[in-house]
């Protein structure tokens, strides 16, 4: 295994071979997860704490399931949104948890960089489950696994990422991962939802969705992040759906075998037509959820191996 990192904070610091070994191990866990008995003992005896300072459905559930299937003791810390206002809570909570000797800490936080900050203060391995608008590495990995399985490869594909790029950590992590794997990336959306400086990131920009979707292999839709918007970015959801919502007519411009992805949760009728999302011939949205559990098992497993190896080097008398 070439994955050597202590934490998984972002895609940015992963090398292509590390990404590939993570995905390869994830395949084993896809197989395991399809069995009736889904247990392994990769994390037996270890403690995993999920600390979510921001709402989550699928990420938190899949990390919980992943930890349990690997035999860890999993605890979910419900951290109230209101108590997060003061950042002291973050470091204090981290130190408190650290004192309970967890081995793996899964963290989501509304501020970019917050998980990096926390990782500096604890002795265990930390996984970023989404920090502000920065990164959401396991989402990009599960997307990559989904693409690789559907397309048979993760290189030389033309991939359109559509919608609210500016507020999306999913877009950032995917941009970085898919770029490292040498794909052609198109960003589609209104200019108000494009982050500054994207033109220098080796991507093609489109404000006309029909133009941008022409011939693409993968259509990755993003959720319109209403909760991160502090002003008018679009005139109305109606107009947004008309110009940037994925419907059958726009999808017909993509390659005939193009797949449709969405990280969830979806705003049906805002960024995606419900019938497209449910079309089992085009949509891999449910596969993404399935891959999410497997990828998180692989990430937990690899970090646990690295943790054991580092403790083996430093700790004396460990059984």
């Amino acid at each position: 295994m070439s994955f050597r990192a202590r934490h998984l904070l972002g895609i940015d610091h992963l090398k292509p071979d590390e990404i590939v070994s993570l995905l390869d191990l994830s395949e084993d866990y896809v197989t395991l997860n399809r069995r009736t008995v889904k247990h392994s003992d990769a994390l037996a005896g270890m403690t995993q704490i999920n600390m979510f300072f921001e709402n989550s459905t699928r990420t938190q559930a899949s990390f919980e399931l992943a930890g349990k299937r690997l035999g860890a003791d999993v605890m979910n810390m419900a951290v109230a949104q209101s108590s997060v206002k003061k950042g002291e809570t973050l470091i204090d909570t981290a130190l408190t948890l650290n004192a309970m000797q967890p081995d793996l800490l899964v963290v989501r936080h509304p501020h970019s960089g917050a998980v990096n900050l926390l990782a500096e203060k604890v002795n265990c391995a930390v996984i970023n489950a989404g920090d502000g608008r920065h990164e959401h590495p396991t989402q990009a990995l599960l997307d990559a696994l989904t693409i690789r399985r559907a397309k048979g490869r993760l290189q030389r594909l033309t991939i359109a990422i559509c919608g609210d790029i500016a507020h999306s950590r999913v877009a950032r992590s995917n941009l970085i991962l898919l770029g490292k794997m040498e794909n052609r990336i198109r960003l589609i959306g209104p200019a108000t939802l494009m982050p500054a400086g994207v033109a220098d990131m080796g991507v093609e920009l489109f404000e006309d969705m029909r133009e941008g979707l022409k011939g693409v292999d993968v259509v990755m839709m993003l959720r319109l992040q209403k909760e991160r918007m502090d002003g008018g970015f679009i005139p109305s959801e109606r107009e947004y759906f008309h110009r940037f919502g994925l419907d059958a007519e726009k999808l017909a411009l993509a390659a005939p075998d193009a797949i449709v992805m969405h990280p969830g949760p979806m705003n049906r009728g805002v960024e995606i037509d419900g019938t497209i999302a449910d079309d089992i011939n085009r949509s891999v949205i449910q596969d993404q959820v399935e891959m999410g559990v497997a990828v998180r098992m692989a990430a937990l497993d690899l970090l646990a191996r690295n943790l054991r190896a580092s403790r083996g080097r430093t700790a004396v008398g460990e059984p």
Partner: protein
Amino acid sequence: MAALTKAREGREMTEIGFLTDLGAVAFTDGVRVVRDTKLLGRCMTYARGLDALIVGHPQDPSLSHGAAATSGKFASLYGIPAVSPMAEVMGLDRDLALVAMTRGRYHADQITVAASLPALARARDAGLDVTAGISIHHLTLNEFDVGDYRTFFRFTPPLRSEDDRLSMVDAVAQGLIDTIASFHTPQDEESKRLPFEAAAPGAVGLQTLLPAALRLYHQGGLTLPQLFRAMALNPARRLDLSAGRLSDGAPADLVLFDPDAPFVLDRFALLSKSKNTPFDGARMQGRVLGTWVAGTPVFGDHA
């Protein structure tokens, strides 16, 4: 300096007359922009009658609200809320239009982007009584120094691109930017041990002002006389203080320094109670050997 509006709330002007009588040399709400343009215009008009200087913070407040970085590739990749350099240009344009309207005396506290310079030059050419300053941090650091969310590099306004930094050094050399200041902003450790966008902005700067400024001298960007003008002569002149020059009757406020003496800065060795400096661990050159206030030695071997 005294507040420009009561409680710096931007609603009513302070008693500029009384405060001037008591020794206030300038009026400012600091980094809180007076949003009400009519009120700021009245402050300028009223202050003009007293020859009082108004120090503004050129920034469009609705654009810069919540921003912790300058917009661009760096801020986008790190997901930090950011503001366009144009917010400074807009704030400056408004303030300068008010100066043209009222003929008041005005100093822009920090001009940090090249795009602001043409407006500043035009105001000077038009004979308006306008000066401008910059912080030592914007002259010596750039946006990439933030690195992995290092909160000691969070400033208001945020650090700029390297191109802008170089333009600002040049603007000081040309005399278009008049003053360099420390913008000494102590923050306790807790206010900086937060996620970047939630951390308090600012750095301590008094003790590092000279060695940081001497970086510009050692790199060849500015000469010692240019630094002297921007750090001593011009600020004293603008505030009508008799300091900042050597002449008959002027107070003997002096500093003796070795511009070459090298050292590595240790933030815990700073005399300030707060240790939030961006120069921790930095190799610097320039040591103060002695300081005199009104002829009396207060620091160094002579004290």
